[in-house]
């Protein structure tokens, strides 16, 4: 599994008697475009939390670039190239958009520990941050306070913060959730234009987006991977239709 940037082997996790991850095996190759779908409460966010280290699995292991990182903390995995966005905005709400991205760039370079000085590094990081915001169509909001932005814009800031880390693996937890339809094309464009070298796992309920973006799709139901395949295989799978696609429209 050396060519895999991220791999999970036999993950288990329960909350009390509720099994939210059961024998999950899963892998991303470099540059992968992978979608994870499943009904509400299937355990999709839980799986992201297991992969990033926010939750510990009760059994199984997680590998980054062929290294077992199961015992590593969240920040250590980030430093090895694993970035994520949150389903619910987790931002530095009182800072400007640019400052938040600048901090991410500084941390990526290990400069965040600099007790004194750091002015030149801060300037370079802010410049790099601005260029990134420009690519995401956020340049006009660079000096705006994050908490004052419209929700859809804040979702884009989530993505900007993750990309500022120049990750090798990016986990997107429902990036378009809550974005008003008028703005959702912005997020679609950003996702479509993600750097090719990054392995991306996207959790999404919008099937149009999923089928447009993903090369492979995993279906998670009640903590278990029901099936995995190409978009055509998933669309044709009667079990998937039954539990998900054919069921009542998702809310």
């Amino acid at each position, binding site marked *: 599994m050396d060519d895999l940037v991220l791999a999970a082997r036999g993950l288990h996790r329960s909350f009390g008697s509720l099994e939210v991850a059961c024998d999950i095996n899963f892998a991303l190759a470099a540059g992968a475009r992978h979608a994870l779908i499943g009904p509400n409460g299937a355990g999709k966010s839980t799986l992201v939390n297991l992969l*990033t280290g926010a939750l510990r699995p009760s059994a199984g292991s997680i590998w980054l670039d062929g290294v077992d990182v199961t015992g590593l*903390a*969240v*920040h250590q995995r*980030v*430093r090895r190239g694993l*970035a*994520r966005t*949150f389903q619910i905005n*987790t*931002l*530095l*709400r*009182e*800072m*400007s958009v*640019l*400052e*938040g991205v*600048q*901090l*991410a760039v*500084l*941390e*990526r370079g290990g*400069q*965040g*520990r*600099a*007790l*004194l*000085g*750091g*002015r030149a*590094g*801060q*300037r370079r990081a*802010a*410049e790099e941050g*601005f*260029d990134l915001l*420009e690519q995401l169509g956020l*340049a006009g909001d*660079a*000096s705006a306070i994050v908490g004052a932005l419209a929700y859809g814009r804040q979702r884009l800031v989530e993505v900007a*913060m*993750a990309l500022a*880390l120049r990750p090798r693996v990016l986990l997107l937890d429902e990036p378009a959730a809550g974005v008003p339809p008028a703005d959702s094309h912005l997020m679609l464009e950003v996702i479509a234009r993600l750097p090719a070298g990054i392995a991306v796992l996207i959790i999404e309920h919008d099937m149009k987006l999923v089928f447009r973006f993903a090369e492979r799709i995993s279906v998670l139901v009640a903590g278990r991977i029901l099936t995995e395949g190409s978009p055509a295989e998933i669309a044709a799978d009667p079990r998937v239709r039954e539990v998900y696609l054919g069921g009542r429209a998702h809310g």
Partner: protein
Amino acid sequence: MSARAAAVGVLMRRRSWRWVEALPWVAAIAGFFLLPNYLQLGTQILVMILFALSLDLLLGYTGIVTLGHAAFFGLGAYTAGLLATGGWHEPLSGLVAAAAVAAALGLVAGFVILRTSGLALLMLGMAITLLLYEVANNLNGLTGGADGLSGVEIAPLLGRFGFDMYGRTSYLYALAVLFVAFLLVRAIVWAPFGRSLVGIRQNPARMQAMGVSVFARRLAVFVLSAGLAGLAGAVSAQTSQFASLDNLSFDLSGTVLLMLVLGGPGRLYGGFIGASVLMIAQDGLAKENPVFWLFWLGLFVILLVVFVPGGLLGLRARLGLGGRDG
């Protein structure tokens, strides 16, 4: 100018000095010449400003709420005092030693209490203060127990400026220490480290998702803050030539918190305003009628906390005269 240069410029210029920042120092020097009879009170105010500044790093910048900061102030005071009664009278080395001892306690205490948060953190901070208080109380022979540690003799500063009975040397000494400490803290809060503390205050999960060890950053600032609190305690002991159990009391932890919240946390200058306002008002009003004074103080604090969460400096920001540092 390009949009990029403009936006980056806005961010970078916040580090620069503004003219209003000269104000507290001009006021402090003016006070030295104009109010020679109040130098002792002035020295106490400077000490409390330094103490509040150390707390601001924790509370205002990192968002760590503690009611145990007197432990470090008191430890610094007793360290400086005991060095002097033990025969080491040189003041500057005494300061450094006191700050180092307080920072060392900060490292040990922080390692334990920063694993917790909220109420547990509050209780552990208080427990450490209580512990030190009882140790100082029981080591009668060494610390003077409840009578306090007197006979703290300090040699002339730099071998030349004796600590005179008018308190002139004391005042300028306290002012100089505060100034140097302030320069250090100001540089730290605007450096990448300080900005990351503000990030931790706003959202630890986000900082962690950026690859930051939130615990390590919190511990680092805790050690720094403890050292600065110890420095304040040492200046207090050296200038008053006395250390007492009051230096290790809950009362003091509460007072410095009150001063900072009153002035406005997270703005560097909150302690300057809070300590000055509170101690000057106390000096003037409390002589007349202590109970009445506390009543009005209580009422004032309630109104402030309810209506102006950012303290007196927040009032200034609300009137559109300047914002929060971060």
